[in-house]
């Protein structure tokens, strides 16, 4: 591990070689929006919200999967990047049925927070309104696919931390859905340990604990700090 110095938004900062731009930026209090990223899990570079401009690069790069390099010059916010981020949030809101008003995660939702942070007041693109389905067969948990953003945090936390690999993604394109086992109802899953980590890491109200009312869903996330700590140690 060697120290790398670079410039982010005009600030001279230092990080370790092999560290991502995102990680170095956050250590220095520079905010970059993310959705699929979660400290402690592998990176997939899927939501594209953390795109930043790197001087000399032909296109914006995802900060979560781009390693810092000596003398790198990074800009985290430009009009263009903000426009892209807003469009991505808009695409997510219109892709499924995100109705904050009746959502268990209302006011504790990363998607909702991102929309607010990016100053979104409405969407021009039409809502696609698919019938994405709900699985409430599990004794303690449920999944409402209408609120899923396919960040795959649940898939990764289950495979990488819990080691059960109950979750994965089936299908592709707009038909893609997270599934348990062979698409088996969650409550009948032979591999699920009911540990609840998937529910804890879900950024929206897609995965929820039963018995909670609207806006009560996500206030406590005891596992998240644990995952962070685990990551720091390694």
């Amino acid at each position, binding site marked *: 591990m060697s120290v790398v110095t670079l410039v982010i938004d005009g600030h001279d900062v230092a990080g370790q070689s092999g560290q991502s731009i995102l990680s170095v930026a956050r250590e220095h209090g520079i905010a970059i929006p993310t959705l699929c990223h979660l400290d402690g899990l592998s990176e*997939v570079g*899927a939501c594209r919200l953390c795109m930043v401009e790197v001087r000399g690069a032909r*296109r914006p790069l*995802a900060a979560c999967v781009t390693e810092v390099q000596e003398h790198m010059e990074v800009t985290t916010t430009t009009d263009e990047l903000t426009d892209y981020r807003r469009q991505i949030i808009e*695409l997510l809101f219109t892709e499924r049925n995100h109705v904050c008003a009746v959502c268990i995660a209302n006011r504790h939702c990363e998607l909702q927070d991102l929309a607010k942070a990016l100053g979104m007041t409405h969407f021009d693109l039409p809502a696609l309104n698919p019938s994405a389905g709900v699985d409430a067969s599990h004794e303690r948990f449920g999944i409402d696919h209408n609120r899923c953003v*396919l960040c795959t945090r649940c898939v990764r936390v289950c495979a990488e931390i819990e080691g059960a690999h109950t979750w994965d993604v089936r299908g*592709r394109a*707009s*038909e*893609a859905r997270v599934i348990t086992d062979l698409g088996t109802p969650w409550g009948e899953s032979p591999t699920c340990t009911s540990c609840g980590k998937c529910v804890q890491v879900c950024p929206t109200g897609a995965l929820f604990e039963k018995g909670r009312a609207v806006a009560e869903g996500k206030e406590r996330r005891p596992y998240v700090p644990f995952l962070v700590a685990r990551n720091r140690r390694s």
Partner: protein
Amino acid sequence: MPEPDDAPARARHHEPVLPEGPVRATANVCHAAGCLSLGSDLVFDRLCERVEASGTDDVGVRRVGCLGLCAQGPLVKVPEHDRLYAKVPAEPDELDQLVEQFRSGTGGLVVSEDPFFARQVKVVLRHCGSVDPEEVEDYVAKGGYAALRRAVTEMTPEEVVAEVTESGLRGRGGAGYPTGLKWATVAKSGEGGHKYVVCNADEGDPGAFMDRSVLESCPQQVLEGMAIAAYAVGANEGYVYVRAEYPLTVRRLNSAIRQAERAGLLGTAIADTSFSFHLEVRIGAGAFVCGEETALLASIEGRRGTPRPRPPYPAAAGLFGEPTLINNVETFASISAIIERGGRWYAAIGANKSRGTKVFALAGAVERTGLIEVPMGLSLRQIVFEIGGGVPGGHRCKAVQTGGPSGGCIPEELLDMPVDYESLVSAGSIMGSGGMIVMDETTCMVDVARYFMDFCREESCSRCVPCRAGTVQMHRLLDRICSGLATRADLERLERLAAMVQRASLCGLGQGAPSTVFSTLRYFKDEYLAHIDHRTCPAGVCEMAPFEMAGSGR
């Protein structure tokens, strides 16, 4: 999909007729997919029967790969008389007459004088249509595997890389990355550990059948190129990743590998040296995105074909995490000629920064559709009008689409442009793998944009948001335009969304998805505006939808 793997549909085929003594004529019957679909296997069987029945001993009948002029199959070529016979019937009486023509060198067309062939320069396709794709001996007899023998016995790996570098060959899969540079990178990667050579034969562009034709016509040539590459970069294992939609290709590849191994040209101790190279075929399963190299590797590893962010590039960490060289079929098929005749010879063909030749699948509104190989730098006009014979039915050429779903439409007024990587990019398209679709004025360019967006939307791997959801919304906007329901604001929104998807998507599929929108907007914006402002489709393709919002009735 079209036929089961072992296609036993028709009974066992006749053995080729190969007379012992001197022959006056050899009927080379095309057995590539196009002609087979027109019944060339039946022609072959009947021809064998007729020749045997006639008692002559100076006429041979063989199966060969693609003869190029696919539009007019089934094709038979008689190389002794430089003649090609098109639309060959399977009627015994007519065949008897044809056999006489074969012997006397009459009828058909003279290959070297025909414009379809005269303009072509064959490097990749030099054995296509002359070797039996199912017999390794035939390939060896025509000089096959001499390049591999030479490389492993007379050259160091560094010399092989240097030769490829000097040739100026660039990846024929689309992006045009310098092949020599890629080989050198893989050669330097890893420290004596495992490395892989992978052939990307996942030809997914709709309207493209180059790789299929090459692999079905002369699979050994591709295997030889892979083996030379493996020697150059220090790999001992490799995979050919081929589409499941091409069962004949799979069959011929598997048979070619077995035959080459038996002949000591693949496997252990190649050409009696210590170099070994083991090859396996991996069959894709219908996912366009697997043409993207990291997705392809994931698929070979038995996983969902979702691309991953690069770096690390496969040259550093590829298949099973090991350094991996990935080139496409045509790139590998070019290698043996480069080693045989030298990088300098190859570099003398072509134009600008694009050296050598390129194979194209010419299709669409053109008289002579088929498989062609031309020197880089030939103009699109020469390809469409001189080789392709122009647009049929008294129509005029409106545009030429290259590069498949990540490419673009080049308008008629730019047809004098040379075909090379840089010119195509500056015109808003790409070289791509070699699909070339000619469009006439009965084609609506907005409809074409919608068609390709529909393709990209359905082929999105679903991982990244811009591609997964952005293509869906772009398709809706294009659909609105085609239906006459869009406003100018919709058009602006389309452009804004397209820019984001192009810049923010994770892999080439998403980044390339808006390219047809951009190129059609650049050259055919008037057609978009006609749909929006006047609710008319100039090409007469699109149907306008009623304006008023529908109530449910109740």
